């Protein structure tokens, strides 16, 4: 039986925990709003880009000499996985879910005898993957210091990916991130970045049998557009990820706040009961003492 003082201390400590979790929830809520707006603002560009790419891909796919970023290197022995997670924890299953998906992917690739390399964006993902796949991690990018993610923050990551591809180190690049669906639902997603994947149902412009004039020619445009598309997709994934992170944290902290409230209620009841029991006991002692005289 804990003493009254112990109970009081525990109640005080749970109360201060609740204050912290509530503050974190509120902070996430306001960050979420901004992150969500940014993610939504980035969608038109990414979608238009895919539309343009789809248009071009239809014309050029299958031809000899199609750019490697679109057609692939013809091999799939070396895989690069870009795993995007948060730099901070306390956001429920957010980081774990992304890492879990990546891990499944890595294991199935290993079974097929492929070589796997991992590029981590965000510290938490690296920490979790390091335990099992330390030798495969080729680098980590931390965006912790970035307050507002701009397109310029993404260029170095894209450059790293493209340089490795150009050097022939990797054949297939896959992106892992959490797609933001709603505050309570973020979906871990794997997106194949290279060779470029044109999602089904992408709207392509209807030219009514006409054809584009290309200025400069098709090949030049594609060689400019494809690397840019890589950067755009990474940018978009990062923005979605940020919104997801805040959403996950908000939900997790909301649950924690509520849980702390429950614990406080239970402890308070226990505290009041034992205080009452003690008072009753003292009274009985006094009364029975007086009767004995």
């Amino acid at each position, binding site marked *: 039986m804990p003493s009254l003082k112990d109970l009081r201390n525990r109640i005080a400590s749970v109360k201060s925990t609740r204050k912290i979790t509530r503050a974190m929830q509120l902070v996430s809520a306001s960050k979420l709003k901004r992150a969500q707006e*940014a993610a939504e*603002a*980035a969608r*038109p*560009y*990414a979608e*238009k*880009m895919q539309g*343009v790419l789809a*248009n*071009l891909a239809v014309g050029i796919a299958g031809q000899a000499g199609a750019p490697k970023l679109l057609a692939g290197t013809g091999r799939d022995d070396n895989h690069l996985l870009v795993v995007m997670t948060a730099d901070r924890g306390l956001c429920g299953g957010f980081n774990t879910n992304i890492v879990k998906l990546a891990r499944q992917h890595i294991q199935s690739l290993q079974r097929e005898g492929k070589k796997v390399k991992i590029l981590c964006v965000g510290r938490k993902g690296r920490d979790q993957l390091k335990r099992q796949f330390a030798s495969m991690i080729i680098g980590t990018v931390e965006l912790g210091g970035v307050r507002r993610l*701009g*397109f310029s923050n993404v260029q170095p990551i894209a450059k790293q990916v493209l340089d490795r591809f150009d050097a022939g180190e990797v054949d297939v690049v896959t992106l892992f991130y959490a797609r933001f669906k709603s505050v309570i639902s973020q979906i871990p997603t794997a997106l194949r970045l290279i060779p470029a994947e044109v999602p089904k149902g992408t709207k392509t*412009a*209807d*030219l*009514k049998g*006409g*054809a*584009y*004039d*290309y*200025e*400069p020619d098709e090949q*030049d*445009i594609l060689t*400019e*557009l494809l690397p*840019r598309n890589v950067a*755009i997709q990474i*940018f978009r994934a990062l923005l979605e990820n940020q919104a997801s992170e805040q959403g996950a944290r908000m939900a997790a902290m909301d649950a924690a706040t509520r849980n702390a409230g429950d614990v406080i209620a239970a402890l308070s009841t226990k505290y009041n009961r034992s205080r009452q029991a003690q008072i009753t006991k003292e009274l009985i002692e006094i009364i029975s003492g007086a009767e004995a005289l």
Partner: protein
Amino acid sequence: MAKMHFDLVSPERLLISAEVDQVDVPGSEGDFGVFAGHAPVMTTLRPGVLSIVTAGRSPEKFFVRGGFAEVTLQGLTVLAEEAMPMAELNAATLDQRIQNAEEDITDAKDAAARDRAQTTLNQLRELRSALG
């Protein structure tokens, strides 16, 4: 006059989506004007000024850098790596771009990349002198 649909988007946001009469686009192989019913064209952009003409209003001008313009039967879509209203463009930001371009030249690994960076730099300088 027939209107056409025009979208100007940068990676960070959608700047304009409207029905307009005419848009002058700084293409990498020369400026060109687009009206409704223009033949389908796909072109890269050079850093420059894009102006939008709508009847009864003064033309809107935007600074665009890097990206693509796509003309389809539905209208014109400009995907710019960077886009901002001319009013927000000042000499300092442009100087910054010029400096970046100069660094690109020193960083360039092969002749083709250096060529591209040099072209960008020249275009930026031209724009800078026009701005005064």
